[in-house]
């Protein structure tokens, strides 16, 4: 395959490079904002699972940087190239110490918006991938309950799968409105969608607790889950129809002369970098002795 074949297959991949975004996912947040105005009046925002940083880029661009109250905190398990105006924390958001580090940045303050575009490194076993994704979302929600102001918004990636309705119900306990949105830049064929949660309104008496998993929090009446389960969570495609179709392939010349661009952010050294050099064909092996 040629160097430009990904440009041919994926219009948003190409546009991201042309417009300077670190990843095509930037368009997802932009399209959600286009339809729902989620970034309006936001001063303080948290980007959980931020790497490679395209959502932080969108936040940094859209939030008013001249305002001294503006604060953007980005968290990820992976290292991320620095972004002006963005405070970075490296850590696993399901890990207690990471959550505490995030919360400590908001001593006495509250965030207007929490976003999470994180996904696990998918294994291909859908049961696990969907479960881990739901746990990641719950971990993000748990952190959110510590820092989000009442009425604040939470946008998180979800995998629509077997048990997704349970997840909708869990979100509904904390937010007045939960909508499932699918930006045009997210492929039709993918299981990815976004939960747009508006109007943060935790149950009366809810005390955020970092140690207990959210679902065991005694201040939440989980029996309500069965009731809310009966609701149908609205599903909305967002971004208008004139937006580029992420499933469609466009010719390279569709908007004038094509020039191949390099990705804005080269991938960080992957965990398998060593192995990639040591094992190139069948039968290759290498022993690294320690001590």
């Amino acid at each position, binding site marked *: 395959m040629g160097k430009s074949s990904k440009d041919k297959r994926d219009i948003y991949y190409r546009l991201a490079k042309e417009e300077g975004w670190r990843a095509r996912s930037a368009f997802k947040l932009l399209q959600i904002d286009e339809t729902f105005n989620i970034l309006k009046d936001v001063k303080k925002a948290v980007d959980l699972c931020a790497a490679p940083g395209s959502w932080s880029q969108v936040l940094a661009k859209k939030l008013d940087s001249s305002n001294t109250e503006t604060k953007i905190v980005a968290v990820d398990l992976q290292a991320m190239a620095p972004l002006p105006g963005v405070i970075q924390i490296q850590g696993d958001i399901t890990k207690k110490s990471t959550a505490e580090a995030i919360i400590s940045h908001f001593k006495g303050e509250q965030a207007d918006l929490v976003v999470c575009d994180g996904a696990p490194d998918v*294994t291909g076993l859908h049961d696990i991938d969907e479960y881990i994704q739901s746990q990641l979302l719950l971990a993000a929600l748990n952190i959110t309950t510590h820092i989000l102001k009442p009425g604040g918004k939470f946008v998180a990636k979800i995998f629509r799968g077997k048990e997704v309705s349970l997840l909708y119900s869990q979100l509904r306990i904390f937010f007045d409105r939960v909508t499932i949105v699918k930006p045009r830049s997210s492929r039709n064929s993918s299981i990815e969608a976004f939960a747009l949660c508006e109007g943060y309104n935790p149950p009366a008496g809810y005390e955020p607790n970092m140690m207990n998993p959210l679902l065991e929090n005694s201040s939440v009446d989980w029996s309500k889950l069965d009731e809310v389960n009966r609701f149908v969570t609205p599903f909305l495609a967002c971004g208008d129809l004139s937006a580029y179709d992420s499933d469609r392939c466009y*010719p390279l010349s569709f908007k004038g002369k094509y020039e191949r661009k390099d990705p804005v952010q080269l991938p960080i050294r992957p965990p*398998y970098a060593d192995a990639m050099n040591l094992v190139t064909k069948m039968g290759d092996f290498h022993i690294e002795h320690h001590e």
Partner: protein
Amino acid sequence: MEAPTFRTSNVSTILDGQDLGEGNLTINEQELSWTSAEIVFKVEYSRIRKYGVFPTTPVVDWQKGLSLICNIEEKDLREIFFLLEDSLTSVLLILFEVVDLDPTISLSTASHPGTQNSSSALIHSSNLKTHVTCLKFIDQFLFSGIGDTLHVFSKGTSDWVSLLSFKACEGKSICFLWYKIAPSKSRIRLLYTLAVQDWVLDCIWLNGEASIAVLTANNSVISYDLLLNAYTLSSTSYCSERCILYSGKLLGNTWDDITVLAGTVFSTIMIWTNDWDSTSVNVIHELEGHKGVIFSITFCELTRRICSTSDDRTVRVWDVESDGPNMLDWKNCSISLKFSLYGHSARVWRNNFLFNGKIVSVGEDSKICLWNNDGILDNQWSGHQNGEIWSLAVSETHELIATGGSDGGISLWPIARAPVPHILKFDSSKAESIPRCVGLTENGSPFMVNSQGAILLHTMGSWQLVMTDSRFSSYCIHSISPNRTFVAFGSICGCILICRTASNSISKLQDMKVCNGRIFSMVWLSDETLVICEADGIFSMWNLSVDSCSLEKSQTFILPFSKERWITSCTANEQYIVCGDRIGSLFLYSKYGGGNPIFCSKRIHGHNGVTDVKLIDGKVYSTGRDGKYREFVIENEELVLVRCLKLKLDWAAAIIETKLLHRLLICFHDVFFVIWSIQERRPILKIDCGGGHRSWDCFINTNDNTISMTYIKGKSIFYCCVPAKNVISHTVVHGSHPKAINAAALVPLAQPHQNQLVILGGEDTTLRLVSVGNNSETQISVLQSHLSSIRAVVCFRSNFQDTVYVASGGGRGQLVLWKFFQSEKNSLLEIIELRSHCVIAPPDKNQEVTHDSAEMRIMDLELYQNSSEILTIAAACSDGMLRLFNYEISTNIINHLEDVDRRHCLLKLIRVEWDTPFLVSACTSGLLVLHCTSSNSTTNQSEKSYSVSNSGINSCDYKLTRDHFVVSCAGDDALVNIIVFALNNEKLDMKYHWKNETAHTCQISGVKMAENWLFTAGLDRSLTIFSWTWADNELKASVLSRYNLCIPDVHGTLVWRRDCDENISVYVHGLGTQLLTFSCDV
């Protein structure tokens, strides 16, 4: 639950160590009692605190103070608790066999969460093929978890056979099953299911405690006490560092000494105990070394080693050192990284210690690596059709490794080092001679001819000189007869020497000059007939008579002129001779039709040549240096290609038929000598031989079940001989598509086939023909013409030709047309490729750049016939174009007719067979467009569109009533739509739009209408059946039944009811396939 009484006599009882003699044991719903002449014991179930972990001895601790010994007369009566661990699938199965108690005295009290509501009794799963996520050897049996089903296999006389299969449980639960395997009757039964709130990573029995401990994905351990007829949560313990785990291992015998080895996503292995006494932190070791997510952790008691595998593609081995000589004290030990082992080329999913401390690892790269205790890679295989390997088990009894893959297959690999050929050394006096050719005799002894013309036989551990013939010193070719009785040598001057090979000798039988020039090649057709090829492509058949000691020429044939004009291979039957040449062509000769070929398949094996050809039962098989294996039938004196296998190996060298392993191909790939099994569709043996060689031989000896091979490398002769069982891998369950099945179509054969035939197109670029039976799915053929993933497949039966045509399409704009071929002579059914066509997107008119074609994918296809000679293909394309093509049957040419620009990626296409047939396309914008087609088969630009929703339509189907067109469609927004259009005068008016928004929670990808039912399947893994009626201008529809599917990533649904079927078959495809039976008459 019905619980009949169980009674047995002659049961011994020991109470507080005192033998009370024999009595009668009675077990019924309420109690257990033991009665002898003097004493009566009654135990109410509610009083029994703990349910024992039964040892394999017949002693059962029912309760403190009371022991029962069942006086066992039959050997197979014994009691065992089984624990079947399966970390990644969440399904933990605990099985036990309760003496000879009928399982109807089951301990079941809880209902099984997998139990469907009553309406689903209408539908049941009859076959499932998907990822094999769990494997375990228990005794001599192999247990496997496939979807929600447990299968038990046992080794039969030659193959592994399925004994039992059982729908066990769905995620996040632990099932307790009773089973009994007996030659006559094997049974399995669910006792109860324990629902766990979290993902289960590991589970162990706590000895003597009659409880289980469960490790969950949120890094906690939960214990449950099992009472006789209930289970209760007893304790929960958390790691002080809460985080998500991808893997973990529980160690210990009691709740207090539990040690957890936890695999995190942040590359650390945390070891923790649930002892909180000393400090607020219960993590006792943190192992750093990996660079990614930890996917598996195991521990070996014997070597006191931990083995972990990761995203970083390594297998890491850690030494646990403790002062204590006996019990390992995890709190007071030091753990250090011993080795990091690199051998995988993708993520490593699982590892297991063997009984001797060796390690086996499997992963995403479909490799199985066997590592010895020093970290050396002892052996490595590649399996599961390049799919992922999810599960792994080892058996000491069978000396086997079992693996389960994403292709739904289960394979077995020998626990043995890879065979290493060794040099057969010469005596120093003969050291300067250079070996010219090498072979193996009747009993597998190597022989050679060297540059001095000496023929040597390797016997009794050294080379023995048989004879020296200087005619063979500068040039020598040889050929061994099929039964290895004779070997013929050919010289530069046209001399032939035929020798007889016996167990320890080679003796001269015949020596003659057959031609003037050099002998180019020789092939034995049988042990009596030798084909000799001389210069100018002349080759002759010679009959060898041992009795009269004669070699007589019978017929002569000639190859057409070419640069390298000699045969490389030859085969014959009573009628025909087929031979292959040095430039890749195959020639068919009539045995009695003169010297010239009657048919030629020019350069079919590429320019590097045909290596072997065999004619067996009227079919011709060939291999070539292009790495392909082909099958032909002879029809009308032509070779008709019916099958082509791309072996994904450098070159195929020979075809051998064996009793032991059926048809095999000898191949060379990179530095490996490979034996490839046609039946298994994969390599079954690889030997590192350093590369392809001028002279080599391989002999599969079915007398002593050994495989021997020899070859010349440099100036040395290498040889090895190994027992077949040490090197050959086996198949328990044959795999199918290793990746998602994107498309499927029913095959409308004219002659009814025993099973329904279905053709499947996959992400792995293969098209597969399968026969779907009630409890089995058999793969008939695999077609490999696509360069990229297949997205669409459609079948069409032409009444003109009485032939079934197939069109398939997918990535890179590739469209392939096929037809079914049914040979007159053979009952075989094959699919023949007619044409492969690349649809190039038309260049943008404003641009000069012509190579600028998009990476277009064909998303859906329709195929129909307009006239006796022309088929029309409609293709829905990802660049927004609906394209029409004509295929001319007589000329085998595809012509592009016209394009309709729909601007959005098209997803589905249906052709409606109305008075004036029309096409309906659906796209990512949620629009249905009806394209009227006129008689000349092109579309009419006056389309009519209808907006169904504002997100993509993934699937649609239709029914025609007298004057209405009822279309059902669904997609990304999870709504099920039924839309009725009135049909009159080519006008299509929307009459009714019915929607359901609660049946599915995720996108719907498979919609099918049959009779008055609508079947919808989606990514929420549920299948919904609606019944619908259209009457009095009103559409009424309601949910009839629902079923939880087992295959993820559903891509589509097929529905059929054949004349002989009582029920409707619903076949769902995605990551695997599932066949369901819908009893519509209930």
